[in-house]
């Protein structure tokens, strides 16, 4: 195995290290309140959730719309178990400090958040994964809505704080933290996709009947993909809670699922790197570059027409339609951005040049 480490792996690893170093340096040099860091933080979190959704929609062929629900479970699990014991009375002010009076460190809480989401996914998967395509989408969407209503239920107040905010749990300042967690999680997903199980998932996506005839237990593998995807969605939800510093079930509407679906579609269904690139682009557009569409602008005395609160969403809708109509493959299609491919392309290019030269000289 030691011999197999190729140049492309080395370059890829170097790129990752460089990326982290760049983020680290930028944070030291630039104003920490710059929009860039908002985009990087939220983008990394959305990238993780988008990749987890892509594992289901793009690699296993299960059209699920439950991502916001699993993020919610992750966010709440994280928040509930990490609020410091001495802060609980002020957070759960309507519920006498809640019923949990301990807190656990951040990293175990992140894992627990994933496990909680995975557990719910396991239970929901038992009946729901027998459905196909649109029906599965409807069932998972319905589940996400139910979860959201359930977590706002007053009777659960001592645990979930009802419809009130959860706050004062540990958060992160550095952009490195979401980058590292999302990076590790995405790496794990990629390793899964490239393993024997990932191939089985792709087989199911391509042809269920043939996959079954190849000895792949359909239900077991679908359930597995569903649970794993939800685990990472849960971790993503917990990261989102840390980023927002507060959690409220209200925020995890189906609109959030659609945002993530949009990222997956724009990035290319079945491409991990596509999802990552698209999520940073999407967050940059929605939080930063297209913000001006939402503010009333005057040029001299003349008010620029259409620009007002909410217009950004109209533009987004148009972009979505354009992508779906004319650019269905998304940014990456189902290919991946990889150093290996670039190297091969370069090799081919050099060979082509050499061939051209040779033919010219031959003349």
């Amino acid at each position, binding site marked *: 195995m030691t011999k197999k480490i190729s140049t492309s792996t080395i370059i890829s690893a170097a790129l990752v290290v460089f990326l982290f170093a760049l983020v680290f340096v930028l944070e030291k040099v630039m104003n920490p309140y710059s929009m860039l860091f908002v985009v990087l933080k939220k983008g990394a979190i959305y990238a993780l959730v988008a990749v987890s959704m892509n594992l289901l929609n793009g690699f296993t062929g299960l059209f699920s719309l439950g991502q916001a629900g699993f993020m919610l479970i992750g966010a709440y699990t994280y928040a509930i178990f990490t609020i410091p014991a001495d802060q609980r009375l002020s957070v759960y002010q309507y519920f006498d400090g809640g019923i949990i009076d301990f807190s656990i460190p951040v990293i175990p809480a992140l894992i627990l958040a994933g496990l909680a989401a995975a557990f719910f996914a396991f239970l929901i998967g038992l009946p729901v994964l027998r459905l196909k395509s649109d029906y599965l989408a409807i069932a998972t969407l319905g589940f996400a809505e139910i979860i959201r209503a359930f977590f706002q239920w007053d009777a659960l107040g001592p645990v979930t704080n009802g419809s009130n905010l959860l706050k004062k749990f540990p958060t992160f300042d550095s952009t490195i933290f979401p980058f590292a967690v999302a990076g590790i999680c995405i790496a794990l997903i990629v*390793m899964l996709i490239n393993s*024997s199980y990932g191939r089985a998932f792709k*087989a199911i996506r*391509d042809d269920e*009947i043939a996959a079954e*005839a190849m*000895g*792949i*237990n359909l239900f077991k593998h679908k359930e597995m993909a569903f649970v794993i995807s939800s685990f990472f969605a849960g971790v993503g939800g917990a990261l989102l809670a840390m980023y927002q510093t507060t959690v409220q079930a209200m925020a995890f509407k189906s609109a959030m699922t659609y945002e993530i679906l949009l990222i997956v579609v724009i990035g290319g269904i079945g491409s991990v790197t596509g999802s990552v690139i698209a999520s940073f682009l999407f967050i940059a557009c929605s939080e930063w570059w297209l913000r001006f569409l939402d503010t009333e602008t005057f040029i001299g005395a003349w008010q620029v027409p259409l620009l007002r609160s909410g217009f950004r969403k109209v533009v987004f809708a148009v972009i979505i339609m354009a992508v779906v109509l004319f650019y269905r493959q998304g940014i990456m299609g189902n290919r991946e951005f990889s150093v290996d491919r670039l190297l091969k392309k370069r090799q081919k290019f050099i060979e082509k040049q050499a061939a051209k030269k040779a033919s010219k000289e031959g003349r």
Partner: protein
Amino acid sequence: MAKNVLKLDHITMQFGGVVAVNDLSMEVNEHEIVALIGPNGAGKTTAFNCVTGVYEPTNGMISFYGEPMVCNHPQGKMKKLYKGQYYDEFNKVISPTPDQITKLGIARTFQNIRLFKSLTVFENVLIAKHMRAKQNVFSATLRLNAKEEQRMREEAMALLEEQNLAHLKDEIAGSLPYGLQRRLEIARALATDPKLLLLDEPAAGMNPQETKELTDFIVQVRDKYGIAILMIEHHMDLVMAIAERIYVLDFGKLIASGTASEVQDNPDVINAYLGVDEDE
């Protein structure tokens, strides 16, 4: 007498009031090539689907190496609708899923080729190795058992080399020409280490030259891997050339069985099938 690989016992498959397969009994012995023929709509593919677990037969039993593999009798609503015979003989219910049957050692190909079209040729074969891999999702993801993965890859590669498909290993399966897709589908089925191979119209859509190559190929596969082969086929020259025994279905019922010459001379068969065929 060679050992019995597959045995169908009074298999009846009824969809509502329609009897697709009616009281079919047949067997396939070790190292034997058996053909199942019959006019369109005779119930051949339905019989296949009963064997591979896609359908659950309404009544009857299927054994694999003497062990009951599938067994059922009319239940619930079917009790009233059932038009066949032998109600109470098969009182056990065994209904495995297709993947369990593949694990037992029965592999199949499909009438309309079903490859994993977006994956490479190599991956298509490699997927067949997944079910017997000694690993779980954690060890596979974290590469804890690299030897197992290595072994799977080597076995898949060896199979591709045996089937002369090695040079196409990185091609996308969906982009292969039709004849090669057929070959790949058979290679993929062989990769599951079957004891019995079911071929559903392997020569469909092939020209006479390709059919002839396929004929030799099927015999080669049988000899090389020492497996039994059951096939559905319409090309009579292929069937007559290599099938050691032939079963003829018509409207779900078995109308004749025996060697090629016995079947050819059977008046029922000529009426139902060969008579029509001569007009073509």
